[in-house]
């Protein structure tokens, strides 16, 4: 086991492709596997901001939704026939949204950040709800076509569930590779320095707000790409894509899997979606079970599943020793006691 872990640690990207190449054959049905990949990418975007930069966003539905509507509107309303152009449109829109919302939210730090991101995402939800001539309003955006994808000059059909899954795998795998590049770059190091100690990073001369904003934009872009893929997958964009419960879902996925770990988001998305799929067979009250499990994780396993596994194996390399974002919490005024 330790060996396998070390292998994954040394070659995360090939490992990702190997695992997910066989994944659709081990889950009950392929549509579920596709959902795991898409939500895994969404959680990955969230994790960049929370796990690596230390900013808890409760409004990531905004970027997932912007990506979904960007892609959906481009393909369904503007008559664009290139899937890539559609996905790019969603990604750009979500990144731009990340810049705007990030700018506003970063005016306040700390715990405000979560509440502000939540409120701005809700604002966007209501705006989307009312702009029904673009978004379809409460009925959702319909009529997103399933177009063949241009791959190296060849147009490939992605109509069957399995073909669509592998198409998503290619896109998500590329995104994962890009994220790895970002984290390995000097910028990635600064992000983690900010998470560990914002004041020290600032003292080192980094423009902390700008770096955070950039992290917000990247995070939004990843979430937006996931949203775009989800639009292609469902062929509709429901308005509740933008609703705050979507944000809550991604928070739960990232934390279950392990915030601040590289593969945690995919593990979390997989566990969450499969848990939902299985539990909803036995009980209509499955959110109660999921909520209780989530509480237990926050209380007892803050590193999440993957974080704990990696922590146990102490294999270093891939994630380093994983840590949840550490901004010490002590009730007001006692912080002098807690840390000098």
């Amino acid at each position: 086991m330790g060996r396998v872990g070390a292998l994954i640690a040394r070659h995360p990207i090939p490992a990702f492709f190997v695992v997910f190449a066989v994944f659709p054959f081990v889950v009950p049905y392929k549509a579920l596997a596709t959902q795991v990949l898409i939500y895994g990418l969404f959680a990955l975007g969230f994790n960049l901001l929370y796990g690596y930069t230390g900013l808890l966003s409760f409004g990531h539905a905004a970027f997932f939704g912007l990506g979904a509507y960007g892609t959906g509107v481009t393909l369904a309303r503007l008559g664009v026939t290139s899937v890539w152009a559609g996905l790019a449109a969603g990604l750009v829109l979500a990144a731009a949204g990340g810049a705007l919302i990030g700018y506003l939210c970063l005016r306040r730090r700390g715990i405000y950040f979560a509440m502000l991101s939540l409120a701005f995402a809700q604002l966007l939800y209501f705006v989307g709800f009312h702009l029904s001539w673009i978004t379809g309003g409460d009925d959702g955006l319909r009529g997103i076509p399933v177009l063949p994808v241009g791959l190296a000059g060849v147009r490939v059909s992605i109509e069957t569930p399995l073909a669509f899954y592998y198409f998503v795998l290619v896109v998500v795998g590329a995104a994962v590779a890009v994220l790895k590049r970002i984290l390995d770059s000097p910028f990635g190091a600064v992000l983690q320095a900010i998470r560990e100690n914002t004041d020290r990073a600032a003292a080192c001369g980094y423009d902390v707000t700008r770096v955070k904003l950039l992290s917000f934009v990247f995070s939004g872009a990843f979430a937006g790409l996931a949203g775009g893929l989800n639009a292609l997958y469902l062929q509709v964009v429901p308005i509740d894509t933008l609703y705050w419960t979507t944000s809550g879902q991604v928070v739960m996925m990232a934390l279950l899997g392990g915030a601040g770990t590289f593969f945690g988001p995919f593990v979390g998305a997989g566990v969450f979606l499969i848990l939902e799929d299985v539990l909803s067979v036995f009980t209509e009250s499955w959110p109660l079970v999921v909520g209780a499990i989530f509480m237990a994780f926050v209380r007892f396993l803050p590193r999440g599943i993957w974080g704990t596994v990696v922590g146990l194996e102490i294999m270093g390399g891939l994630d380093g020793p994983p840590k949840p974002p550490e901004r010490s919490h002590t009730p007001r005024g006692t912080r002098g006691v807690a840390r000098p």
Partner: protein
Amino acid sequence: MPFDAATLLSQLFTGLVLGTIYVLLALGLSLIFGLLTVVNFSHGSFYMLGAYLGFFVLGFTKNFWIALVVAPLLLGLLGLLTERWLVRPLYGRSIDDPLLLTFGLSLVLVEAARLVWGKMGLTFDPPAALAGAVNLGFTYFPAYRLFVIAATAVVVVALWLFLERTTLGLVIRAGTRDALIVRALGINLNLVWLLVFGIGCALAGLAGVLAAPMRGVYPEMGVTIVIESFVVVVVGGMGSLLGAIVAGLLIGEVVSLTTFFAPKMADIVVFLVMAVVLLVRPSGFFGEAGLME
């Protein structure tokens, strides 16, 4: 559109009632945040439970007034348990953890309410003495809504007296300024935190019982109002009780007047107010910049 002083006045009055519920919720949130630096995400679920427990006590005793007192007390008790067993173990960890935990708790409580009381929702009738409408000169206004305004005013004054005139209130106020010194004076702060969390939850419960005869009782009733209450707290200034009151009433009036002049904007305006306040005065009306970041 017919538009005269009487109509406008009735509009302001309805806005006042909307505001009172925000005030009660924001007071509880702000009190807990001011002392414990905990954002209680399950505040909306406590509001919902307040309504259900109020209904339960009402069914048991057939007396609205008992329900009005007992349900918030039960919620306060639940608040004590929550602080002691769920929130306290997280002190010293990431500042986000209590928020995440109470988020999970809110999911559990909503689902539990569905399980225990059913999905359909319940009707909570106002007490017979307050069932009718009162002639205010410019309009007929439900007596119960006037009572809600009065009850909120009483609670706000009582809370103010408690914080300003009692020893315990003094300790709480001192604790928000510098807990280290308070502790050095030999005061058991753990107990104070426990109590404040309980009071905050009791206020949410009271808001729930008061709202129930107007809006009905159903499992999802606290889901969106908690987000609006966050906005109220941010606009008023986190941790500021005066801010919670002013911002709560302001948001209530803004919503009411927007409903009158531009009804399509009614659900967005709350968030627009927040965006504007944030751009102009990031710490909110009465917040101290940088104190709790």
